[in-house]
């Protein structure tokens, strides 16, 4: 295997390719309580995130729809896996942790529900792609804040 292929397989790990091809929780969530759009104007990634938060403040279910590159779709898919069942406050903290981790902060330890996000560590070497990986997480924060404007990654 060439060095290029190896490096690239560090970015496009099996898990990433799997989640991008078979995104989990894909589609519109009926009776969502929170929703937000994410746009990455640089590459045209666009997604809409849906959350249903119950009265106790837990994320009962989540989903997303839209289109984007493998990284942004995989990240959104991993997100919905990771935050479903979490209390809102904990989900908020996840946004911060993931953003720090993807920006290259090794000390940003991933809680067990975020373990799989390690698969995205490869983007750190590709500054222009970090935005793809964080897009869904920006949208999550917007949704939780009930922001009216789309989250962008600039």
């Amino acid at each position, binding site marked *: 295997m060439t*060095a290029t*292929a190896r490096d*690239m397989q560090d970015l*496009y790990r099996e898990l990433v390719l799997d989640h991008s091809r078979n995104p989990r929780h894909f589609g519109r969530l009926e009776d969502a309580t929170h929703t937000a759009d994410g746009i990455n104007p640089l590459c045209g990634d666009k997604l809409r995130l849906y959350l249903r938060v119950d009265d106790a403040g837990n994320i009962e279910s989540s989903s997303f729809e839209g289109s984007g*590159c493998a990284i942004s779709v995989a990240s959104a898919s991993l997100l919905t896996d990771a935050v479903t069942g979490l209390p809102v406050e904990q989900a908020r903290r996840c946004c911060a942790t993931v953003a720090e981790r993807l920006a290259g902060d090794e000390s940003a330890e991933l809680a067990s529900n975020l373990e799989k996000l390690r698969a995205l560590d490869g983007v750190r070497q590709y500054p222009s792609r970090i935005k793809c990986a964080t897009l869904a997480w920006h949208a999550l924060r917007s949704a939780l804040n009930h922001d009216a404007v789309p989250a962008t990654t600039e």
Partner: protein
Amino acid sequence: MGAPVRTIAAADWRADFPALNQSVHGQPLVYLDSAASAQQPGAVIDAVARYQREDHANVHRGVHTLSQRATEAYEGARDKVREFINAGSRTEVVLTSGTTEAINLVAQSFCRPRLAPGDKILITHLEHHANIVPWQLVCEQTGAELVVAPINDKGEVELDRMLELIDDKVFLIGIAHVANALGTVCPLDEVIEQARQRGIPVLVDGAQGVPHLDVDVQALGCDFYAFSGHKMFGPTGTGVLYGREELLESMPPWQGGGDMILEVSFEKTIYNELPYKFEAGTPNISGVVGLGAAIDYLQAIGMANIASYEQELHDYMVAELQKVEGIRLIGEARHKASAQSFLLDDIHSHDLGTILDHQGVAIRTGHHCAMPLMQRFGLSGTARASLAFYNNRDDVDRLVAALGKAKEIFA
């Protein structure tokens, strides 16, 4: 006029461009993104640096030696532009910060004061945002309507339908010379001919025309022609609005400031003559000096030589890409220049861009500032390889090989 057409190895030219002589991710760079911005020959880089080391001062208003030299260098570059596009007079060459500013100038100074509700601006479906949004803004400001001529599935302007749309309510037509996303060469002759019969001015967005074709604005017969320095191997922050003198004369100034006036008092201000009326403030002097050097460089090769060399290379690129399994070419117009858009399997163009970059191959991905065009094809973006005369067949082969690797990774 250009040198006689001859066949030259692009390698001769390539060595003139320092940025091309580098490795990216450990691989020799293959630069296929000239439609976004072109690299500069050393002659341009050096001309700018030499100007700053030896001659810089503000232009036009100075009596001292450096100011005199700077003025000569700046105005000398204007003369080079005039000759390069064969404008009738230097007064018709307005120096701007780029194509975008040039088109905004026409929208705001030529159109805005005269447009009324019911009037139309006619463009095509393959325009760059720079030839869409300024018209949207002025339509909003005046109540005029933006009308869009359709294109077919090959990415060609549907000429018959466009000609039908040219009626007496059309105030101005804006059309690309060459479409940046698809490389389509537009049918300017027919559109301009029809527009002239009805006395409708035509603005040609020449951002992708000037770097690849031998442009003669008088032969084209257009009323405005806009282009950017950085796409023709010159500096960013420079551009040109060619305008027929009669039209430029009739337009009020757009921006106010130094140099665009003859006399200012609080009661009355007399504007300067053409082209200065449209050049408010200190211009991009060093950039324009570089633009002049870029023109010298291009003239020495000859635009006809460049056009024929590139045509052959473009044909080769299209033929090689077609051999790649799973490729879908977007833009298959009969007349094309420089750019080719494509999709590969179901790999998102953004991922493709990263994988190619990792192999030293620089392409552009995304909407190419032509979102309505992307919508027309039901796409959010494409991968685009664009050629300049410094590219060669090796570059194309490297592109094709890199696409093979991408298929492996996403297999």
